[in-house]
C-alpha cells in the first residue's frame, strides 16, 4: 500500500492554504532500466479534494509531475477545524485518501 500523504492546512482570514506531499514514483515511461528495458509509466492521473466531505477541486496529472508530488491550493470559505481530504488515483488503479484538520 502506498505511504501516507502529508497534508498541512492553515487558515488565513476566510481562506485556508493547503499544502500536500504525496509519496509516488511518478515514473514517466520514458526511462530505461540498467538492462535497457523501458520502465513502464506509473503516475498519478487524478487528484480530488473535499472540504468537510464535499468535493471542491479536481485535477488531472500526467507523468511530467515530479516524483513525490507537491500540490498547493487555497480553499475559499474554510476555517480552522474544518476537514480537508485529498485523494489520488494512479494509472495502475491504486488510490489513497488522507485527511487533515485545518489549523
Amino acid at each position, binding site marked *: 500500500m502506498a505511504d501516507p500523504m502529508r497534508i498541512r492546512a492553515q487558515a488565513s482570514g476566510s481562506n485556508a492554504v493547503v499544502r500536500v506531499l504525496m509519496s509516488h514514483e511518478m515514473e514517466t515511461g*520514458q526511462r530505461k532500466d540498467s538492462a535497457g528495458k523501458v520502465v513502464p509509466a506509473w503516475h498519478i492521473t487524478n487528484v480530488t479534494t473535499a472540504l468537510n466531505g464535499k468535493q*471542491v477541486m479536481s485535477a488531472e496529472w500526467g507523468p511530467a509531475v515530479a516524483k513525490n508530488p507537491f500540490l498547493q491550493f487555497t480553499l475559499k470559505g474554510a476555517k480552522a477545524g474544518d476537514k480537508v481530504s485529498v485523494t489520488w488515483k494512479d494509472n495502475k488503479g491504486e488510490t489513497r485518501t488522507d*485527511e487533515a484538520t485545518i489549523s
Partner: protein
Amino acid sequence: MQTRRDTLKQSMAVASLLAATGLFPRDAFAFNKAAFEARSIADVAKAYGAGAPTESKDVTLTAPDIAENGAVVPMAVASSLPGIKHLMVLVERNPSALVAKFDVTDAVEANFSTRAKMGQTSDVYAVAITNDGKALYAKKEVKVTLGGCGG
C-alpha cells in the same frame, strides 16, 4: 494546536473509511488521454474544447529563471479573471507538453502550485481555459542546468 504527527495518525485512520464509503464520485477520475499525449500548446487547448490560445496579462505563471535540476521545477499558475474553468501548466519541449490540469470551482482560488519535470531548457506555459472556451496564456523560458559532478 495539532502536531503534524497527530495529523498523520488521523489521516491514516480516515483513509480506509473514506475509501470504504465510496465518497468520491467515479466521474471525478476522468483522464483526458488526448490532452496528455498532445505535443503542442494549441492541441492541448483543443483537447479541452478551447480555441487557439492567446497571450494574456490576466494569467500568471510563477517559475524560476534557472532550475538547478530538471527533475523538480516549481511552477504556479493563477488567474485574476472570473469564469475560469481550467488552469494548466505545460512544458513545450517535454515529450508531451501538458504537465497538470486543475479544475477551478467556486470553492477554490484560481491559483495552484506544483512541480514539474523538464527534460531540457524550454518555454513553460500557464494556460487558463474560460467557461466560454477561450484559452489564455502566459509563458516564460526556464533554463535547465547541468549540476553536480556530472557522473
